[in-house]
């Protein structure tokens, strides 16, 4: 037993553990773990500005002090930092406690990294309101109808006080019994109809594909292998453009690297088609069969601090 664990320890020590990846790779790892959640290189602005060409844009000293202490720079009123802060939704870039050396490695990486191939698509600024369809529309109608009935009944009772009279309580009680039976039957019927439609993974449902999702403040990472900690980011390969096949059952295994997030999948008609929570320490397994081809969007559906509403990722169904 002790020998086995000793061997295991030796093995671990001898292995190229993530942190000690190839020299010169530190910049990339730091970037993917600490910066990519808010920045891109050549794919446009996200929470913060696109960092492609930032070395040409700003003096090196400024960059070093900004990356090691953005909060200090903004608080001290540095004009460039304050302007950026105003422009990027007044979200203060977090102080990530980086050393000057790490900041240097990052700038080196930013200088070398080729801007991502795809040029940012022309920004759409407005889309028409989608049609209300699917289960959401039926739910709204049901709600409005029941509410109207409630309003009518209360109005009728209120108006009845114009002609006061003694009411036969026993007759009322027999009406109540009838109502009770109706309510129980209706609710039990709805239970029987709706409980089997719960979206939980069931034995026997074999997904054609498994996709891991790691949520963090403020982006989603798709991968074929699980990512359960920040140390694995940059080591485990991620899928930059996730493409799914129409009608093929996919299982998302969703977790979070920091706080609770929500994995809210919006279909091509911009309505929620499925969702689950992203909770640190757990994998939620969401089975999903895409019935319509097109562009899907994932939005974060659990509040996760200042960048919450900016946290999103795209996927395509062919």
């Amino acid at each position, binding site marked *: 037993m002790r020998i086995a664990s000793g061997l295991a320890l030796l093995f671990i020590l001898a292995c190229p553990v993530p942190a000690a990846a190839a020299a010169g790779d530190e910049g990339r790892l730091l970037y993917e773990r600490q910066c990519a959640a808010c920045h891109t290189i050549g794919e446009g602005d996200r929470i913060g500005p696109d960092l492609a060409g930032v070395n040409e844009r700003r003096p090196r000293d400024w960059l070093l002090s900004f990356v090691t202490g953005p909060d200090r720079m903004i608080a001290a009123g540095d004009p460039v930092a304050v302007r950026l802060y105003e422009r990027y939704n007044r979200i203060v870039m*977090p102080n990530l406690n980086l050393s000057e050396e790490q900041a240097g490695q990052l700038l080196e990486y930013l200088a070398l990294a080729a801007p991502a191939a795809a040029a940012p698509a022309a920004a759409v600024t407005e*889309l028409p309101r989608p049609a209300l369809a699917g289960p959401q529309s039926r739910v709204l109608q049901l709600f409005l109808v029941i509410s109207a009935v409630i309003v009518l009944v209360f109005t009728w009772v209120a108006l009845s006080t114009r002609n006061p009279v003694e009411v036969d309580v026993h007759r009322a009680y027999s009406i*109540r019994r009838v109502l009770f039976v109706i309510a129980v039957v209706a*609710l039990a019927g709805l239970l029987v109809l709706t409980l089997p439609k719960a*979206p939980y993974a069931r034995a026997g449902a074999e997904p054609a594909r498994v996709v891991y999702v790691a949520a963090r403040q403020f982006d989603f990472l798709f991968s074929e292998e699980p990512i359960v900690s920040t140390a694995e980011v940059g080591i485990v390969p991620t899928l930059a453009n996730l493409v799914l096949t129409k009608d093929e059952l996919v299982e998302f295994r969703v977790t979070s690297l920091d706080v609770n997030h929500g994995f809210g999948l919006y279909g091509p008609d911009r309505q929620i088609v499925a969702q*689950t929570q992203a909770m640190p320490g757990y994998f939620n397994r969401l089975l999903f069969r895409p019935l319509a081809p097109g562009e899907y969007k994932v939005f974060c559906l659990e509040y996760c*601090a200042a960048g919450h*509403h900016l946290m*999103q990722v795209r996927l395509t169904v062919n």
Partner: protein
Amino acid sequence: MTTRPASSQLLIWIAITFLLFPVLILLGILMRSIQAGEISALQPWFYPAMTLHGVGMVGVWYVAAMACAADVLSRHVTLPPALGRLAIAGTVLGVVLLLACVLLGRFAAGWYFLYPLPLKGEWPLWSAVTFLLSLTVLGATWFIWSLGLLWAISRRFSLGQALGWHYLAGRTDPVLPPSVLITTVSLIAGVAALVSAVIVLALFYLELLTGQASDALLMKNLTFFFGHTLVNLAMYLGVAVAYEILPEYAGRPWKTNKIVVVSWNTVLLIVLVAYFHHLYMDFVQPGILQYIGQVASYASAIPAAVVTIFGALLLVYRSRMRWNLASLLFFLGLVGWAIGGVGAVIDSTISVNARLHNTLWVPAHFHTYMVAGLAFLVIGYFYHRCQEAAALRESKGYHQLLIVLMTAGAYGFFLMFYLAGAFSVPRRFAVYPVEIGHGASFAGWAALFATLFLVGFVLTATEVGRRWRAALSSAT
């Protein structure tokens, strides 16, 4: 006209409520305006405002409902005055701490501060600690308050009697007013909720002091057990007040009987497990709890609709109802409770929740029963007591106008939430992304309707205020 003096403690609670409510409404209007894209300069304040608004509103209406229930209770049992003073002092201290952490520290973890967000946001650590301290003060105060009220009840009724069990055995001695029964049920649920809050807070402090992290799923269960229960029982306290006061206006009795006892004892059991519906989208939660959540949520509708709402309608139907601002608000408060409840039961269907969870449907239904339900009941009771003490002349037409303003404003505002929820617009988004850009126009209309409501409320508060001043001089 005979007058009945009001208690000075109730008058203080009225002042606190009427001071804080409009400010918190303004924060709500601010949020809707930011979402509409009208004042984007204030966008960084969206999430702090949301946090202050949420905690503030839940807190204000919980204490206001407790104050009304305590006032009603004092007709039937003797309350120690020190208890009420402690509740006022503790609540004010908690509110001051809350204001400090949000306004100075920009604390913004949302009203249910889901673990571990308070420790991992862009706000400074001291503001998170101040927030936790604020909740500790409020929690401890309300815990003592609830236990104190239960103790006061226990000096007149045994626990079994206060829960009406002797009615089940066919005895009606001692006579138990329904308001005492419902208040007892609510207070017991409240004690359970506050114990859960204490555990959550203790685990936060443990992590702050020793770095010992907690399990996120356990924390979420504890948080919603506490949050869900607290919000629901605040509503029940309002209903307890309606059971007591509405009969005075209808000129008919509304008494405890077997059915009422069975119904409210069932509510006590159901309310404690219905909170599972907040975790439907946490697929790792054991499946059986999810199904219990839906069954319990559905079941909770039966005592509410078939016993309480039906009972209230029967009470009013063809009675010699004396309609005034108070009785109209009570009656409308029950409408708001019913409609909000329908929105809640729909969303408590697991397969529906997969489409509506954390969309604006959620604030839609809870605003319906908090604003048009609980707040209407409480404002009705405040007016009722002040008017009883002051006996000023009531201007019927003007009061009806106020009701129209508040009702139209409130339901217009809710409708924008419901529609947006059906269109998959997420809740808690400071800015809507392009794909959900239609959320902005709902927000703009909602801001207008909310302003209408605010105008109606301020005018109503002025009407209550005139009577409040007269009541103050004769207060006990």
